[in-house]
């Protein structure tokens, strides 16, 4: 057995509040320098997991090992784990520079070293001009920069970020995401990032842990999660998708199953017993207009068109709650109008089949 290369190793982390289990035995290994996102809806346990790693709450069971040291029972101030909070939690009675210096002063670093480090980080986050300003006078984006600089100035082994961009508007958020990614790469900092925003997770992460109901449902690279979601939840939560409920009616050679749906029989790779209820999914950019040989073909009725600049989405009527969606970078076929039936198709290999969530 090769030694685990994990820098952060969370083993069977378990936590309940009252009667509800928030985390049910979560394992997560993060490599040095890696950027891992915990992605999931609110209440999935991602923030709880982050607070356990930071030492701000105690897990009911499980271990946290950081850089070979078991930190499970260490208090937060002995962990070397930095946190950027959702509310930033800047010290309102201190200036920008004093906030950044706080951790170094708490550790009793020499004055000259503190001054030099503060200068470095103030520059890194482009706050030179505002270093002596009270943090209360800063905008959201500036506060966020100070919070990141403050957490990184003590050079933590691990940086945890709890939805740090949620209070920023979209434009600023995208700028800050790129800035943060660059900063972490320059410093070689390992980071765990909590978010419910899938675009943010897809854009920033080396790997994403998709969390649902206190468990990690899939841990993989953004491309792998998008292309091959491990569960119906991962399919639904990450990226857009068309999902149709159905029932397996037969198995075919090469691991293909036939599924009966409201749109007729569809085929896709999977190993299910005949009769099992399933969800058939497909990504919108995998669907094309018109019929093709050897593909899943259905006839649908246009409901809506959503123009998104570089791309356009067509939504079609579906008996399920979720519309059937096509996303296309090109032109939509002429004559496409609401109410008129159109054939659409996608490859059997692009079909994703999951057991139906009860």
């Amino acid at each position: 057995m090769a030694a685990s290369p994990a820098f952060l190793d969370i083993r069977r982390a378990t936590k309940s509040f009252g009667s509800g289990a928030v985390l049910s035995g979560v394992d997560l290994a993060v490599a040095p320098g890696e950027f891992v996102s915990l992605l999931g809806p609110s209440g999935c346990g991602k923030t709880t997991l982050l607070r356990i790693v930071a030492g701000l709450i105690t897990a009911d069971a499980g271990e946290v090992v950081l850089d070979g040291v078991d930190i499970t029972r260490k208090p937060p101030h002995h962990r070397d784990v930095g946190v950027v909070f959702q509310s930033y939690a800047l010290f309102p009675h201190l200036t920008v520079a004093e906030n950044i210096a706080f951790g170094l002063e708490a550790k009793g670093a020499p004055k000259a070293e503190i001054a030099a480090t503060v200068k470095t980080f103030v520059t890194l986050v482009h706050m030179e001009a505002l270093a002596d300003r009270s943090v209360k006078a800063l905008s959201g984006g500036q506060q966020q920069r100070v919070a990141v600089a403050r957490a990184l100035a003590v050079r933590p082994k691990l940086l945890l970020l709890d939805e740090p961009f949620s209070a920023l508007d979209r434009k600023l958020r995208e700028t800050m995401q790129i800035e943060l990614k660059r900063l972490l790469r320059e410093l070689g900092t390992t980071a765990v990032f909590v978010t419910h925003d899938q675009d943010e997770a897809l854009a920033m992460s080396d790997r994403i842990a998709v969390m649902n109901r206190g468990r990690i449902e899939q841990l993989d690279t953004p491309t792998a999660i998008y292309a091959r979601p491990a569960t119906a939840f991962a399919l639904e939560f990450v990226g857009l998708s068309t999902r149709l409920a159905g029932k397996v009616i037969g198995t075919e050679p090469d691991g293909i199953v036939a599924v009966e749906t409201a749109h007729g029989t569809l085929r896709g790779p999977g190993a299910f017993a005949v009769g099992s209820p399933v969800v058939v999914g497909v990504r919108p950019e995998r669907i094309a207009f018109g019929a093709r040989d050897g593909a899943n073909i259905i006839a649908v009725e246009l409901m809506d068109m959503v123009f998104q600049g570089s791309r356009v989405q067509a939504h079609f009527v579906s008996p399920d709650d979720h519309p059937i969606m096509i996303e296309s970078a090109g032109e939509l076929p002429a004559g496409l109008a609401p109410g008129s039936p159109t054939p659409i198709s996608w490859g059997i290999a692009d079909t994703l089949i999951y057991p139906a969530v009860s």
Partner: protein
Amino acid sequence: MTTAPATPVAEAPQRDTVAWLAVPAVGYLAIVYAVPLLFLLARSVTGPDGFTLSLFTAFFADPFSWRVIGNTLRIGVLVTVVCLIIGYPVALALARARGLVQVILLTAIILPLSIGVVVKAFAWQIVLRRDGVVSQFLVGIGIWDEPQRLLFTETGLVLGAANVFLPFMILPIYSVVKLIDPRLTEAGATLGASPFYRFRKILLPLTLPGIVSGVAFVFSLSVSMFVIPSLLIGDRFQTLATLTGRSYLLMRNEALGSATAVVLLVLAVSIVVGSTILAKRLGRSM
């Protein structure tokens, strides 16, 4: 040009009408408080031959007066310190408590205010007696060899007064702590700061305005208390407030009473004004 030019209608500047809401309070206080106070002030500087400061020079020349001032300040400081030491942690707990616990704590702090100070002082008389619970307890756990009375001692007075004034320390601090993001101390912890460092550098500076107003409340209440020392320590021990009361009620010595009242007033006002200025300055530097 026979007609006089119309005088331009002056645009009335927008006045802050909200200030008028204070009129009833200001009027009431002016009649029942400010006017009598002026009489008092006037009495303290009036002699048989008109204006004189002889009352004050006589007062300050008497060593007994200095003992009374010393008593007043010592008791005021002790009661304030006891309230601060007991009240600060309570205020923190109260602000961080949730749901039913918070309701119970708040009730426990506010409800005693509805019990008259005389009743409370009498209760303390029983508690502090030689055969009272405090004495029995301390003998029981072996700290005292034999029962002692705390009643009619300064310790008893400080204990009783601190009990009565404790809510006035807790509530202002509580209202400040409530507004502090609990994430701030967590952020301090993740930056490597020990619990004591977090307290000194985060919680203490941020709660200072609350501490200052609590101190101002309790100090001005305890230098001017009359009923509690009368019942818990008696006539042997005089403060400016009890001396003022005695001068008017027992000795019929209006001259002495007005002088001590003015000295007390000056003391209390300078403490309150001083602490307010301090709070403002600290608030600005934060």
